[in-house]
């Protein structure tokens, strides 16, 4: 670090600021990391190890000490299939930082209850941020997170758009002793068998999708249905298939078949044709993102939605979908049932405050990914205020069992046993007659939190120690 400073000083693009020195190679050198640098130099350059805790005489990784700012790490997919979702997450984070630092209109800071934040950063420190690209690959995501921890001094990592990545980064953060506030991840495993003390998820999961959809399915399609599952062949797909299957079978439905499809199959025709004559009258697509857009488009092309089977109208269900996916599926999504974490059309004060800030800043409404990321950033900052410290074990304890309201989704509990948020879940339907280009989902039902709450023991897992 010390040498880095020295070399940095010699770079042509150096500029003195109040905080320290900025260089091309080392974008975020401020007083804090400069101090760290000197501390390391003092400790001897022989074996500077960032993962060695207590390295700079403090008691946790990237302790801001008496620096004037703290750094958050926003780790989102910027390339690959989820790049648009990632871009939306990043917009939300920037907005969150703005609001936390007391700029802009404050967004959900005006509606969140209970609120410890004061709109002057966190614990009086201004929030800065660094960004990275997860590429929706575990390795790349971990690399990016490590850069934020090792180089940029990030105090908290957040973001992501898939469960595999969320779990991989969560594991890393547990080892590093840095809190991870998961972005969009829907697998039961994230806060189930792979849950970690340092990982937190605001987004809902496959189990909750099933529990929320159950009553609506019963109401709309009755208790005598024959379901056929097409499932993306990886962990998220399996947990969703299991959850939805349990729910529908409890309603009295029969499961005709469950077929695993390769991720990124593109053309699903060879999996769709067997549905035609299987005797099933419901097709459940456990696909996400591009897979879902493709399989739904093709299923509709095969005429499934115009079919009558067993004297009933054939139905397609997509248990998890988002506005971006609806946009990609075009007309095919119209009338399709599914569940979602949040939608901009919600009328509660928290959602409205967020949609207002976001809409005025960027000119279009936020996605559910943006919402969950925004809320996660605020929740972390709020927990630091509550704990009166950035010391992770204290922050974790503040988040565990925290009950809050006014952030969309009604009254919410961050359950201590598995770090999963319990809140209302939306059952939605692809809008038949959208009034605008953003009005793609129609909210069928807001299922109250009690109905989707489950016993944490069913998924097992072990949170691990407070002190990493």
């Amino acid at each position, binding site marked *: 670090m010390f040498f880095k400073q020295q070399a940095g000083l010699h770079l042509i693009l150096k500029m003195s600021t109040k905080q320290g020195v900025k260089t091309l190679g080392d974008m975020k050198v401020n007083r804090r990391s400069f101090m760290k640098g000197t501390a390391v130099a003092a400790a001897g350059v022989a074996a500077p190890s960032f993962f060695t805790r207590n390295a700079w005489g403090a008691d946790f990784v990237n302790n801001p000490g008496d620096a004037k700012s703290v750094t958050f790490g926003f780790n989102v997919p910027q390339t690959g299939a989820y790049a648009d979702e990632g871009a939306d997450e990043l917009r939300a984070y920037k907005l969150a930082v703005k609001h936390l630092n007391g700029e802009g209109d404050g967004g959900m800071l005006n509606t969140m209850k209970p609120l410890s934040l004061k709109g002057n950063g966190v614990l009086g420190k201004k929030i800065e941020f660094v960004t990275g690209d997860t590429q929706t690959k575990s390795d790349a995501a971990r690399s990016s997170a490590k850069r934020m921890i090792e180089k940029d001094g990030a105090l908290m990592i957040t973001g992501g758009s898939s469960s595999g990545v969320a779990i991989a980064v969560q594991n890393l953060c547990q080892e590093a002793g840095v809190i991870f506030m998961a972005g969009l991840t829907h697998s039961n495993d994230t806060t189930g068998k792979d849950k970690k003390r340092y990982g937190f998820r605001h987004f809902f999961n496959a189990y909750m999708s099933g529990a929320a959809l159950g009553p609506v399915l019963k109401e709309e399609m009755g208790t005598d249905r024959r379901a056929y599952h097409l499932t993306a062949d990886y962990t998220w797909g399996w947990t969703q298939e299991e959850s939805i299957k349990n729910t529908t079978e409890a309603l009295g439905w029969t499961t005709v078949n469950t077929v695993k499809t390769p991720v990124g199959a593109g053309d699903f025709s060879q999996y769709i044709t*067997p549905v035609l004559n299987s005797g099933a009258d419901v097709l459940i697509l456990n696909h996400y993102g591009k897979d879902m857009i493709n399989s739904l488009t093709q299923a509709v092309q095969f005429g499934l939605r115009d079919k009558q089977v067993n004297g009933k109208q054939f139905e397609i269900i997509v248990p998890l979908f988002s506005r971006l996916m609806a946009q990609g599926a075009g007309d095919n999504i119209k009338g399709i049932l599914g569940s979602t974490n949040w939608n901009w059309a919600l009328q509660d004060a928290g959602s409205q405050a967020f949609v207002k800030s976001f809409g005025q800043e960027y000119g279009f409404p936020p996605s559910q990914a943006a919402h969950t990321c925004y809320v996660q950033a605020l929740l972390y900052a709020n927990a630091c205020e509550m704990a009166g410290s950035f010391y992770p074990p204290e922050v974790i304890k503040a988040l565990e069992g925290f009950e809050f309201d006014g952030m969309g989704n009604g009254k919410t509990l961050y359950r201590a046993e598995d770090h999963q948020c319990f809140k209302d879940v939306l059952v939605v339907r692809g809008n038949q007659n959208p009034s605008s280009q953003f009005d793609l989902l129609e909210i069928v039902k807001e299922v109250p939190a009690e109905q989707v709450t489950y016993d944490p023991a069913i998924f097992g897992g072990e949170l691990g120690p407070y002190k990493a």
Partner: protein
Amino acid sequence: MEAVFLQLLNGLDKGGAYALIALGLTLIFGTLGVVNFAHGATFMIGSFCAVTLQKLLTMSQKVRDESVTFFEAYKEVPYLEIWFGDTGRALIDWTVPLALLFSIPIMLAFGYIMERGLIQRFYKRTHAEQILVTFGLAIVLQELVKAYFGANPIPTPAPDIVSGSAHVGAWLGMSDAIVYPWWRLIYFLFAAILIGGVFAFLNMTTFGMVVRAGMADRETVGLIGIDIDKKFTIVFGIAAVVTGLAGVMYTPVLPPDYHIGMEFLVLSFVVVVVGGMGSLRGAVAAGFLLGILQSFASMTEVKSILPGIDQIIIYLVAVVILLVRPRGLMGREGVMED
């Protein structure tokens, strides 16, 4: 029985698609010998011709939705619909077929510029360098498309009239339960015609003969006084058009995004190589073989005996064929073997 027949239809449909997607690569890679990693990107550009045309045709009058106050939400009414009513609506509905015409000059220009501007300097360079430059080009094209159109897939439906399914079973006097989407049948027919056209062009015209001769011995053909460079440029242009058309036709099946080409890149290479280098017939045969086997491998009955077989069948078949037949199905000796 119905299930088997349906999978056979799937297989033929897939085979047609694979053969058509790989057709352009057969010309550039199999015939001109350029390891073209930008083939996928060419396919992608083709499908974005359809997207662009759709954007043009659906340029809309925006009616503000007043109920939304925090940002501007519009209900979009295409100008074509306002001006021409049903005719306008029909035009929009027929975007994808129209895009076929729209894409031909664009793809021709694309192929011409790519060959004259870049590839022609690489005919005599090593394969490694061809890979690097075409891969670089592919990334650049993808990123430019992504910067403008975003990363999310864009729906480009087929015309309404062909949106349903055809009663194939009834036609053949089989069960009524056998239906198949019109668009896929059309795609299959289109693939057959295009492949036949290219085949005839290469094998039955003097031009084709010159190109084939030029590939075998470029210098001698040059010595006879034929401007072989120009002919190669034309072949490149044709390849780009063929690939682009395959891209346009595939948009109703797979809503295109900037990355769609990469997903077909590996598959195209496998099809061309399994078919045998330099053999159009081989590539077509390989396309159908892989398509049909993939469809059957995806049947639940097969998967229950060999779990995961549908995920690897293409590669497994490729390995078996390449081991049994040294140069793929119908490869010519001495092409790309060193």
